[in-house]
């Protein structure tokens, strides 16, 4: 009896001692982007009993992968609604996996939107366009939430820039997100260039675009790519840049 009391006292004492350590460690984990998933009733309803228990027991990644495989099967059957739901669960479970956010956005903005536009069961063009725009918005929403969860990585900024450029033809936003991607450590070297290209298509921002493209051009041969030279020449003409300040006419193009 005495021994049991001592054991309980030690356990409670140890529990009290470890409490601040565990809290400190949990805060450190959150600060360094670990354990970003909140286990609540909403998630429980989404995953079902078994999936929730598995996710709680440290098998969150495997549950997300199982759902990803289901989403892949749904894609093969072009079940867009089911895919949307599954990708929402997947990204809730694994908010730090860029691949899931990117794939979800790609399916919505590229695949589902094209399917909606080519939907033969919907004779009215206006409704098909509406559905297509809704899928663009869903893709954008995935990328925006992905960025919120991964502000320290450039990939999703880049994906969102691509979406603005290819789907919305919104060069201003595309330039903004390429620039944001370029500002994040580990960004691809072309992000800075792409941001300047996109800006060169924006009415009223030609001067800014010219300065950025020119500054890239001045960095050396490696940046003097065909598109950069083409856009720079276009802006020189548009802005009426004096001949002596223009880049040489027979510019060597790096292929």
């Amino acid at each position, binding site marked *: 009896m005495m*021994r049991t009391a*001592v*054991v309980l006292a*030690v*356990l*409670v004492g*140890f*529990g*009290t001692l*470890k*409490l601040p*350590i*565990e*809290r*400190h*460690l*949990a805060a*450190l*984990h959150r600060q*360094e*982007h*670990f*354990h*970003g998933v909140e*286990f609540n009733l909403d998630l429980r309803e989404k995953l079902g009993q078994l999936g929730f*228990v598995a996710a*709680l*027991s*440290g*098998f*969150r*990644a*495997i549950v*997300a*992968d199982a759902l*990803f*495989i289901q989403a*892949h099967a749904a894609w093969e059957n072009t079940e867009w609604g089911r895919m949307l739901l599954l990708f929402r669960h997947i990204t809730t479970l*694994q908010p*730090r*996996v*860029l*691949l899931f956010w990117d*794939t979800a956005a790609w399916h919505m903005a590229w695949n589902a939107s094209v399917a909606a536009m080519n939907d033969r069961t919907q004779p009215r063009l206006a409704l098909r366009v509406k559905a297509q725009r809704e899928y663009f918005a869903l893709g954008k929403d995935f990328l925006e939430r992905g960025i919120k969860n991964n502000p320290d*990585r450039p990939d999703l900024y880049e994906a969102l820039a691509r979406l603005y450029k290819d789907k919305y033809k919104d060069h201003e936003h595309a330039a903004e997100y390429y620039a944001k991607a370029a500002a994040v450590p580990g960004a691809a070297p072309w992000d800075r260039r792409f941001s300047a290209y996109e800006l060169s298509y924006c009415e009223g921002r030609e001067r800014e675009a010219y300065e950025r493209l020119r500054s890239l051009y001045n960095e050396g041969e490696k940046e003097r790519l065909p598109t950069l030279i083409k856009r720079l020449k276009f802006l020189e003409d548009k802005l009426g840049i004096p001949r002596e300040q223009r880049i040489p006419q027979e510019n060597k193009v790096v292929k």
Partner: protein
Amino acid sequence: METRYRPFSLWRIRAITANTLTELTRLKVFYVLLVFALVLIGSSIFMAQFSFQQEFQILKDVSLGAISLFTSLLAIVATARLIPQDIEDRTLYTILAKPVPRFEYVLGRITGVLLLLAISTLLMSAGFVLVLYLREQAVVHTTLRQMSNAPPDQIADALRVIQSSAFNINIFPGIAVIYLKACLLAALTLFVSTFATSNIFTIVVMAFIYFIGHLQATAREYWLQEHGGGLITRVFLAVVTLLFPDLQAFNLVDDIVAGTAISLAVFAKTAMLGLFYTAVYTLLATFVFYGKEL
């Protein structure tokens, strides 16, 4: 010549450790590795229809999840049978009839289990790294074949993308944390088995502890909130917080696979917590075992 009795002997502990390892090996616990290999090969074949990023992601998730599951299961099942089995076989009486202090027996037993877990974790990790490497090489060869006419910088970029999707050096500290979690579970199982009446009881109790341990962090945060529930709820949450380990703190590998870098501070502090738990539960197991009537 009469040899002097030593109250503490590393040789005695070593003998018990070696004996524990041999016993567990004879129980064919390493068959778990075979199951692991099947999971690994099965998942890598099945994933061939995905893009290489998706394939590597799923391969890493499934493999590390399987390592975590199998080491935890091994830790609980292997440890749960040690003391009850020794009592049933009467081996315990033979050991303790010799000048072997009980703490040396407990220490030898737990070290044997920890060694078994280390060997299993190493073998599973080696298998995982090998399969990942082979898959990576297969993708590299395919890419090189497809890009045979591309400029060298494009090929280099493509190879960089493949290599960064496949292997991540942070996986190793992640596996070390999985091992520490298994050590904690083994020590806790040993503690439960010192007052349990059968190994079934120990395993069932440990299954509950495993689930509650993963909820401990949620219970702790709720308990420490000012507005958290009524008196009974608060007492329940306090019991869960104080008496159970925070197992969620050791689930770092999901985020590591997702690309989150593990800093030295996070790894060192998590490892210290794991070692701290293991030491305390081993001490408690020793204390209870000293009072056990045999």
